[in-house]
């Protein structure tokens, strides 16, 4: 097989609970004082077993988007996506034009909840007053006839908004593998460039499940932390007292470019997106295998794909959700993969600050890895007071570590057993490899 095309990360956009842009989010993540969570304000959650979440606080202050027609069918998650994608495109400093629009792709990881609660409520009130849907009542119910509500509900609505906004006309796809969605979207984008069917891809993830039905799903499974009185401490990955994740929302976007094209136009390059590994646990729908089987293959595949050795890996941005089982099984996987070298890999979970952004998590954490590589800074894990002995890895806590990163990895492990690992390489190292003919 011919040599793989290399892929550069040249643009980043972030809208997270930690901040509505890259600089604010990154500063708060590096500081890692506490989780950006609090009592839920988006709706009255006072009756729920978990009443806290990490919300995007300045949602109303996101920059105005000058496309009112499209905005009519943009949901909260779509607005987050548009804001983060706008940042990433501006940061990359390049847009599709009529000559190369079909050489641009767009791959997104989109959340599973697409209908606004007000609409669910309106349908229930009028068409299911006693709990059972009476279909005939939909026929002249305004909300059930509202084309904009229908548009918003479609799984491709987010992709459509982005394609149209930037005039992208090549490969377009939407993926959803629960909490692995963002990572798998970016992995797919990497492959699309390597295949030679696109030169640039806008890729990322967006999600907001902070709604009555969205939160319900996690409360029913007892997957979210019930620490309602201490929201800032509720997300504490790897801590012995952890008891579930904190639901977050937001979006992360990257602009990926063919390496040579990025170098030729003098683009600033955060990092090389050097590899992706992808595996299915095929074990149970929510449980991860205690041995780390599944994530082990994903990490090994990512390193092999990136042509990286165990010794190359400086930093791992863990999936680290702060659930009992995930953190334990993920740490078992790290030890299985790195063996004697496991303690030489610095590990942190930035979900300790941002909460768990579900379909956006992998994309936001990919952006964080790119920033970590650029700055030579590995962010700490907030809220870690007492390391779980079953999480026997080198967890960064307290203050960020300054160290040049050769290779960083980012894990995203989803309900349903999809595991994704992305590998990022320092751009100077990539430039050397390229110069040496690799």
């Amino acid at each position, binding site marked *: 097989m011919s040599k793989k095309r290399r892929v550069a990360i040249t643009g980043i956009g972030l809208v997270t609970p930690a901040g509505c842009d890259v600089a604010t989010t990154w500063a708060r993540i590096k500081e890692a004082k506490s989780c950006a969570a609090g009592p839920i304000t988006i709706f009255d959650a006072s*009756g729920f077993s978990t009443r806290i979440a990490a919300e995007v606080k300045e949602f109303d202050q996101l920059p105005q988007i000058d496309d009112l027609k499209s905005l009519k069918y943009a949901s909260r998650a779509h607005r987050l996506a548009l804001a983060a994608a706008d940042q990433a495109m501006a940061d990359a400093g390049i847009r599709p034009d009529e000559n190369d629009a079909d050489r641009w792709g767009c791959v997104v990881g989109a959340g599973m909840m697409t209908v606004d609660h007000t609409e669910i409520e309106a349908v229930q009130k009028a068409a299911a007053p006693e709990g059972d849907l009476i*279909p005939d009542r939909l026929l002249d119910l305004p909300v059930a006839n509202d084309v904009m509500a229908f548009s918003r509900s479609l*799984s491709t609505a987010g992709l459509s908004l982005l394609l149209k906004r930037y*005039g992208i006309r*090549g490969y377009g796809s939407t993926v959803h593998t629960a909490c692995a969605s963002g990572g*798998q979207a970016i992995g797919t984008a990497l492959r699309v460039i390597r295949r030679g069917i696109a030169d640039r891809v806008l890729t990322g993830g967006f999600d907001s499940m902070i709604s009555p039905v969205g939160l319900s799903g996690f409360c029913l499974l007892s997957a979210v932390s019930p620490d309602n009185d201490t929201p800032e401490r509720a997300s504490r990955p790897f801590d012995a007292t952890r008891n579930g994740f904190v639901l977050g929302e937001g979006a992360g976007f990257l602009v990926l470019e063919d390496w040579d094209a990025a170098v030729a136009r003098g683009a600033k390059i955060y990092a090389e997106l050097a590899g992706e590994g992808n595996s299915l646990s095929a074990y149970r*729908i929510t449980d991860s295998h205690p041995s780390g089987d599944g994530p082990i293959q994903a990490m090994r595949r990512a390193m092999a794909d990136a042509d990286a050795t165990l010794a190359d890996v400086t930093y791992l941005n863990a999936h680290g959700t702060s659930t009992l089982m995930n953190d334990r099984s993920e740490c078992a996987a790290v030890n299985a993969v790195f063996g004697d070298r496991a303690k030489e890999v610095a590990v942190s979970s930035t979900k300790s600050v941002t909460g768990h952004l579900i379909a956006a998590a992998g994309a936001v954490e990919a952006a964080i890895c790119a920033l970590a590589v650029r700055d030579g800074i590995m962010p700490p894990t907030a809220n870690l007071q007492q390391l779980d002995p079953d999480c026997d890895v080198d967890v960064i806590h307290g203050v960020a570590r300054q160290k040049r990163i050769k290779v960083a990895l980012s894990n995203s492990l989803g309900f349903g057993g999809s595991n994704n690992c992305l590998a990022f390489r320092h751009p100077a190292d990539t430039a050397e490899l390229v110069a040496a003919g690799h």
Partner: protein
Amino acid sequence: MSRIVITGIGAISGSGHNPATIVDELLAGHSALAPIESWDATNWPAAIAAAVKDYNGGKLLGDRKLLKLVRRSDVFGIYAGAQAIAQSGLDSYRESLDEAAVIDFTDQTGCYVGSGGGAFEVNYDFFPLMAEAGDSLPQFGKELSNMVNPMWLLRSLPNNVLCHVGIRHQLKGPNGCITNHVTSGMLAIIEGAWALRENDAQRIVSIGHDAPIEPQSLNYMDKVGLIANDDLRPFDTEHNGCVLGEGAGCLVLETEASAAQRGAQVLGEYLGGADASEGEGLFAVRADGDGLTRTIRAALKDAGIQASDVGMIVAHGNGTIQSDASEAHALKTVFGSNMPPVTSFKWASGHLFAAAGIFDVAVGLEAIRRGVVPGIANLQKLANDCEGLNVSNQTRAPQSDVLLVLCRGFAGTNAAVLLRALK
């Protein structure tokens, strides 16, 4: 690059529970479109659909316990997957291996799923709780665990089929779940084939599934003007919309070396595929078929063949005026006057949405292997703007063993796949 072969196919729709029966139904001119039975739709302006007949979830799954963890759409996906995997002999081969070889085999076997599923139906499970709580969200929160199935979220995951097919058939390699509406299933084939080309796996199970026949979806689509009130007539002058179908399709793809090593029967070869967007909005379709034209040309290039090599085309042919006309335009642009026989299956099985493309690939492969291009049985007179399209209401013979299948969806997305039938 090793050749990629197909060693198993599966399909289910209103027309039948396997590809052979579905092709028989197409050849006999039988349509599965019928009045909706899943709710009383007598007052509905458009009240027909192509529902799967003799539906028994537990039986289709072959595992009644699994029924509480999945939805109707998932049942179709898991069923089509089991059917294609049985034909390919993947399970029996794995079971014949020793422990060490099993690990390698499962790590080298992946799964890509194109998933539809309901944006609305999942919320219906909350209606009893909402009726109980009235306007009070605090009450909603308090009564939640008393009134909603604790497994609700797991039953609602779009990636359920990937998870359960993976567990049942021990597929542990590269995987993906594509939720790109109509093109999802076909993208599952294209992405799966790339995983083989890129040497990330030796075997890939690609599945697409959907079950969109439910009141809210039908009402919205009717209001957008997409639904026909009496019949789905691809490319006919009387065409006035599409009709909902449901079901799934599946292909087992593997490297030629893997199939040879297992002694598996080879049904066809995957030649290439492509995907492109028009990017002009959610419901916008360019009249000149630009996105589809680029997609077909990119697929031919990917396959390394010429337009003149294609012997049979399964068009998207969804029966809406805009889509049919622009599709005809694209086909005329690419094939000119040397167009091979073109058909569409939606007149019989309705529109399977996320499963549409992969269903057409599985059924199309069955047809071309039998040497038939099933006619569009209800075609009477070609629409004016579809003039020049090589369609017929009669069964014809393919011009070669190369099959092209097209698929188009909301957001101006287009996908195409090229296969060679092997006997």
